[in-house]
């Protein structure tokens, strides 16, 4: 849940990979070995047509299933963990597993255990505790209480490759300017041309979301020219001083 200005980072989450734990119910008794065999077949790229209730165009599309781990099989109940690309319908996956098995199957229960960089084991908090900790913070005025559940929005960008820039480049970026090579102080490996990156100050504050126009190696070598095109500015203008001039 993103607060105030952090809502600008939500788009990153919508396209991020997910993990679920699911209980699938088979419509007949199937040997465990066979169940595991078929579920393993659904690892990798699968085809899916979104259900009627989904608000997307209903055309068959490819989705990546990163892994399927069968946790427990109890007669017709199958408990499994699945990691997949955004927009993968687990209900449809269960239905299709049933088709392959021949007997049919349906998704009985689903819990999302990961959304991009957010897991259910790290800084996970219930609504009840949000209310509790918030009033505790109001009483004690101890900011560390608030920090237990309010995380910096940079956390949302955790899976995107990072590019850090020098102070003098920050405010121009906040005004929507694209990132040029001289501004870059450090960058992560694995950037490919066209991929989304997150641009940070040297202190680690998120400035903006951008699309790289070159790979890590190319950006490293370049001395001038645009290396990333700004998609969404996150930092307010004026946070860092204006150290640029409009062309005369």
């Amino acid at each position, binding site marked *: 849940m993103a607060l105030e200005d952090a809502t600008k980072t939500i788009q990153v989450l919508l396209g991020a990979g997910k993990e679920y734990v699911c209980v699938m119910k088979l419509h007949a008794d199937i040997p465990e070995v066979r169940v595991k065999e078929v579920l393993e077949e659904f690892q*990798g790229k699968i085809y899916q047509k979104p259900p009627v209730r989904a608000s997307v165009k209903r055309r068959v599309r490819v989705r990546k299933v990163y892994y399927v781990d069968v946790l427990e099989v109890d007669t017709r109940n199958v408990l499994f963990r699945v990691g997949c690309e955004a927009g993968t319908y687990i209900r449809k996956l269960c239905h299709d597993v049933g088709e392959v098995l021949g007997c049919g199957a349906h998704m009985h229960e689903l819990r999302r255990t990961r959304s991009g960089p957010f897991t259910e084991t790290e800084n*996970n908090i219930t609504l009840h505790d949000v209310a509790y900790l918030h009033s505790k913070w109001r009483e004690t005025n101890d900011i560390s209480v608030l920090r237990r*559940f309010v995380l910096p*929005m940079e956390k949302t960008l955790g*899976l995107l490759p990072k590019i850090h820039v020098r102070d003098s480049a920050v405010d121009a970026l906040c005004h929507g300017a694209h990132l040029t090579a001289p501004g870059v102080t450090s960058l992560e490996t694995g950037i490919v041309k066209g991929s989304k990156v997150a641009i940070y100050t040297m202190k680690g504050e998120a400035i903006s979301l951008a699309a790289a126009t070159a790979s890590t190696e190319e950006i490293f070598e370049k001395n001038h020219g645009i290396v990333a095109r700004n998609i969404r500015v996150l930092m307010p203008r004026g946070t860092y001083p204006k150290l640029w001039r409009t062309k005369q």
Partner: protein
Amino acid sequence: MPRIDAPWTVKRELLTKAEDDTDPGFGHKPEERQYPELVKFGVINLDKPPGPSSHEVAAWVRRILNVKQAGHGGTLEA
């Protein structure tokens, strides 16, 4: 079918291209943000109860924390 590497398993290395200092007079490290910046640029990893809708829960969070905007990061499409 073989497993594909999930995005969260990708390991990256940070390469330094140029040396420079950052002025301590501007900005804050995210983990050192004070109130109200902490909340203004904050996210909550909320374990949503199954009953109410994401929309309702967002409204509750807005009220509890007294913020103008709170958006959820995607509904569980069942």
